[in-house]
């Protein structure tokens, strides 16, 4: 476990670096956040009092230290606009983002793995070229446009799926994990499950396809790479069936690259969630981030961005842990 501990300890300076950069950015931003909140009509006394209340009259380094020492105790301060502790807002919105992230990952895997593996096995065939052309189109599609087009066709023209939100108004799901799909299943609320599923489908397709396009290309090349290895020739020479060679030897070895790439792409998924949640008014933390930026709630923006960084690091660590399961030769 020493490597794991080293990874976590190694991340601390990086997270501190990011938090300081964000802190610095917030302070060089044009416009006074106090004036922005109180309005142009605020008296200098009111402005000075609010600045003192928030500790904004302290030197920069003192403010940063204050922020850090509170943050490690889980106190991220209060959102200026929502007038609620930031941590509550994050807790409220996070499950939606996690649910969307997992659903998008499932969509991406369902599209990319079969397409990439099949293209590699049928290397240089018409199907391979068609698969790769689809992947190239996918990489080039701006996902917010895809989302809008889905809203237009599936939501507007065909009226098949809801175009915004996370669940139909009036349907309540008893919270257990706060993931609607899971909670509705656990409580046997099938109407709730169906509604949550329908609301999740378009955002998940939007976010998942952009990821699928990248992963398809990498899945293909990693399978091709493994197929050229000597042990595959040995497996065939031993007389193993093609099915066994593909499933037991090629796919298992290609999985390591695939998991790495999926892990690395989760960062793109996090960025993508900001845009996708905005397009579908999906109430996750990405949508909250854009709202906080539009109302200039710098404190909330700062914490949310930092939160994204920590989440990105945690996901990458999880991917590293997954390697040991896939490839027992790697030990943490």
């Amino acid at each position, binding site marked *: 476990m020493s490597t794991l501990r080293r990874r976590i300890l190694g*991340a601390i300076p990086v997270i501190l670096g990011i938090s300081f950069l*964000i802190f610095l*950015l917030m302070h060089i*931003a044009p416009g006074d956040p106090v004036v922005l909140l109180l309005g142009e009509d605020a008296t200098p006394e009111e402005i000075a009092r609010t600045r003192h209340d928030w500790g904004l009259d302290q030197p920069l380094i003192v403010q940063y230290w204050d922020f850090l020492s509170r943050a490690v105790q889980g106190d991220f301060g209060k959102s200026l606009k929502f007038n609620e502790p930031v941590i509550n807002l994050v807790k409220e919105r996070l499950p939606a983002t996690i649910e969307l992230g997992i659903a998008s990952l499932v969509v991406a895997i369902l599209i990319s793995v079969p397409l990439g593996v099949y293209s590699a096995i049928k290397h240089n065939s018409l199907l391979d070229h068609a698969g790769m052309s689809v992947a*190239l189109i996918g990489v080039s599609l701006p996902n*917010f446009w895809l989302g*809008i087009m889905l809203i*237009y066709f599936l939501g507007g023209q065909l009226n098949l799926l809801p175009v915004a939100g996370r669940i139909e108004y009036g349907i309540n799901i008893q919270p257990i994990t706060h993931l609607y799909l899971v909670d509705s299943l656990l409580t046997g609320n099938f109407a709730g499950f169906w509604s949550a599923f329908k609301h999740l489908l378009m955002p998940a397709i939007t976010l998942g396809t952009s990821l699928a396009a990248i992963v398809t290309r990498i899945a293909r090349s990693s399978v091709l790479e493994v197929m050229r290895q000597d042990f595959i020739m040995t497996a065939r020479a031993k007389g193993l069936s093609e099915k066994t060679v593909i499933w037991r030897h090629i796919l298992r070895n290609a999985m390591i690259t695939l998991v790495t790439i999926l892990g690395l792409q989760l960062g793109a998924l996090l960025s993508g969630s900001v845009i996708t949640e905005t397009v579908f008014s999906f109430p996750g933390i990405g949508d909250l981030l854009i709202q906080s930026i539009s109302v200039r709630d710098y404190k909330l923006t700062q914490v949310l961005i930092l939160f994204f*960084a920590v989440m990105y690091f945690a996901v990458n660590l999880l991917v590293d842990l997954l390697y040991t399961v896939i490839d027992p030769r790697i030990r943490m």
Partner: protein
Amino acid sequence: MLGVRYFKIWVGGAILLLLFICGVAAPLLAPRDPQAQTLEDRLRPPRWSENGSPAYFLGTDNLGRDILSRLIYGSRISLLVGAATVVLAGLVGCTLGGVAGYFGETTDEIVSKMTEIFLAFPFLLIAIAIMAFLGQGVFNLIVALMLSRWVQYCRVVRGEVLSIKERDFVTAAHALGGKNFYILLRHVLPNTLASVTVIATFAMAVVIISEASLSFLGLGVPPHIPTWGSMLSEGRSYINRAPWLTIFPGMAIFITVFGINLLGDGLRDVFDPKLRRQ
């Protein structure tokens, strides 16, 4: 397969050239002023539609502005932001990567720590963070995207320099009395050009989509400048009544990025000897 490779380069290059011509010659090509509002002609569908007007080939928006003209002018921002970001990020990334790879030791450690910090964060979120705090503007946008893209150049160039500096011609240059910076600039860095060109091409595609994404979120250039992303964002509210407001800007982004990716694919196939053998 060489034909397919060159086909990709030709088609991709042609699309990029078209974007360049549109951007440079926008005042000559655009049929109207992109800002001119004709409220009586608002939300006109494209020319070939039932209520389309011959005066507006791709229709008009909610303020009666000509979509085609706005698309042509919008290409300027994509081109400017794309090219400037790719060049600046390339300069920063290649310089730092080259210096880190060539001199190694402490320099390498400092640069590697810096890249680690930037890689510890999804690049679009870096751009969102910077734009959120610095505010809208072409310059801010280029800086934000540059700061999020230089790392890719840096890592690749560092890796290549590490291997190139061990080659015989570098030893020969040293033996001839060449100074370190001279050797780095004259002999080492030019040998990374093939990889840098491929990275730059793909980076351009990513930057154009990122610029459109940021403009779509209202974090790009100021609202009065027409961009494809902001056109999409404005058209969203009219999606069922006037779908052409979102279809055409989205297609413009898609075709441009598709062309650049095609060019990048072709260039990579030509430059990468490993792929050439396959």
